[in-house]
């Protein structure tokens, strides 16, 4: 975010989640920008340490759910009140609101349906996940027991390499941006 010039990237491989978390905190406090960490499982507190913003997917889910609720209200109003009102078990059908208690189950189900499915589609879209997509992790070991960190190179490469070695990196390599 906000980086207009593309610095080369240095990749460092770790084999412990606590070590990688400590390394991220250390590098950040020394002015480095940790642009990415690939890990086999979610590391608690990593997003905060990297300075990532909160995801807005849950807010989106709320509005998706609201859409479902409105859709269900409109659907039951249109079919049961407007288009062809019928006397069903003597239930009031002159106004949608009077008949509404019977529609609560469907309104609830469609709220959940819209919220869950649209949120998942959004999740796939923002993560660029789709069937057959190329693996996004550069090193296959990061789905097993390794952790790959990408740091933007600022200043001398030797300084950063030394720093990463001190922080417990097993392998260090440079990638031109």
């Amino acid at each position, binding site marked *: 975010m906000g980086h207009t010039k593309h610095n080369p990237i240095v990749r460092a491989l770790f084999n412990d989640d606590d070590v990688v978390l400590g390394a991220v905190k250390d590098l950040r406090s020394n002015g480095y920008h940790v642009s990415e960490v690939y*890990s*086999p499982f979610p590391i608690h507190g990593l997003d905060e340490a990297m300075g990532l913003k909160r995801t807005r997917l849950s807010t989106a889910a709320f509005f998706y759910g609201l859409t479902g609720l409105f859709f269900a209200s409109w659907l039951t109003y249109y079919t049961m009140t407007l288009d062809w009102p019928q006397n069903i078990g003597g239930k009031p059908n002159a106004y949608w609101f009077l008949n509404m208690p019977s529609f609560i189950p469907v309104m609830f189900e469609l709220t959940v349906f819209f919220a869950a*499915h649209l949120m*998942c589609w959004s999740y796939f879209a923002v993560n660029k996940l789709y*069937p057959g997509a190329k693996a996004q992790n550069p090193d296959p070991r990061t*789905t097993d027991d390794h952790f790959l960190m990408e740091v933007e190179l600022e200043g001398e490469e030797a300084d950063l390499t030394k720093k990463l070695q001190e922080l417990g990196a097993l392998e260090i390599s440079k990638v031109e941006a």
Partner: protein
Amino acid sequence: MHYESPVRNPLILGDKSYSDITNDIAKPVESKAPRAWWIAFSIAFVMFLWGVGCILYTIGTGIGVWGLNKTVDWAWDITNFVWWVGIGHAGTLISAVLLLFRQKWRMAINRSAEAMTIFSVIQAGLFPLIHMGRIWMAYWVMPIPNQFGSLWVNFNSPLLWDVFAISTYLTVSTVFWYVGLIPDFAMIRDRAINPVQKHIYKILSFGWGGQAKHWQRFEEVSLVLAGLATPLVLSVHTIVSFDFATSVIPGWHTTIFPPYFVAGAIFSGFAMVQTLLLIVRKIFKMEDYINIEHIEMMNIVIMVTGSIVGVAYITELFIAWYSGVEYEQYAFLNRATGPYWWAYWSMMTCNVFSPQFMWSKKLRTNLIFTFVISIVVNIGMWFERFVIIVTSIHRDYLPSSWSMFSPTFVDIGIYIGTIGFFFVLFLLYARTFPVIAQAELKTILKSSGENFKKHHDEHGAH
């Protein structure tokens, strides 16, 4: 950060590293199927084929091939429907409710429990479809514009609520399951050697890379889905119970049905999870991950929900007496002492009496005993639905119409067929999918792994 009280037993046994977890969970997918798997699969497949034959016979000839008559016009089909939906509930309960309650022991069992949910809801969905008779008209349950003077479906009907509830439940459970599966498919993709296998898991894993932002979204989506699935699972069996409770049949027209059905669903679902996982952990050597701790926890849930069901049975009897309505009173007297007394007392024995053994720690940590009880509970829960449905309608308001129900070979064949279909799906799943949510499990290794806990106890927290 990775500290857990020594009071809690370890959830991952043995001296495990992250890599050991990967290897152990990828093993069933990468190795040849054990002999026991082929035997089980063959039996299930034959049962499935028999069921397909009976379904085709029903569709080709008509519902008349079942044992229904004009008094008992709902019997095994709806019994099986409710039974299968109920079994499905434990999967969602484990993955959603236990996630909200932060119960770590769910992590070893949620994947298989959710698979069980999806496969059993598929079985459940078959019954209303077949019972329509003209299955090619099934799309009429959807509110779609049509040429019959815009004749819409009836949104006042609990049967239509069921259509919405079951389809929402099935599809939402499937995406919940799949979102969790993606990182584990990626794990198999990244270690696959066989190019065909690698390609298949590449397609299934959607390109997952495990970036920090993606994990952050993953956790948020899992939490929100759990929050949505929790009321959803309660609503589904509530709505199933409305199919009965909103009618005016004595024995059905009761307000206790929703909570009573939900408790029964969780009860039978946990029993089915026990049955399946006791086999899976043995065949695929997952004893370190699904251990006595997990079995015991599930047995406690079975004991509690079984007792809730027992209270519901007794409440029903009391209310029938207290209501002063003679039809209601007769319905319950007839259940317990009428011609179907054996079904009623099988239900009582299996569901209320048998789970009480779980008060004993020795029995609830015994694997063979657990396995037997898990099957007894599912037999009992089938009888519960049979008792509610058939004994309530076989003697109606008009004694000249009283009759009995006896199933034909087609009724039995379709039921056996769905059991076969369920196991065909589950066995295929167990060979090709990571049966334990390994990415999630790795997050608790340092707090709940036996080796790490021992290290903490000896050296103190760091």
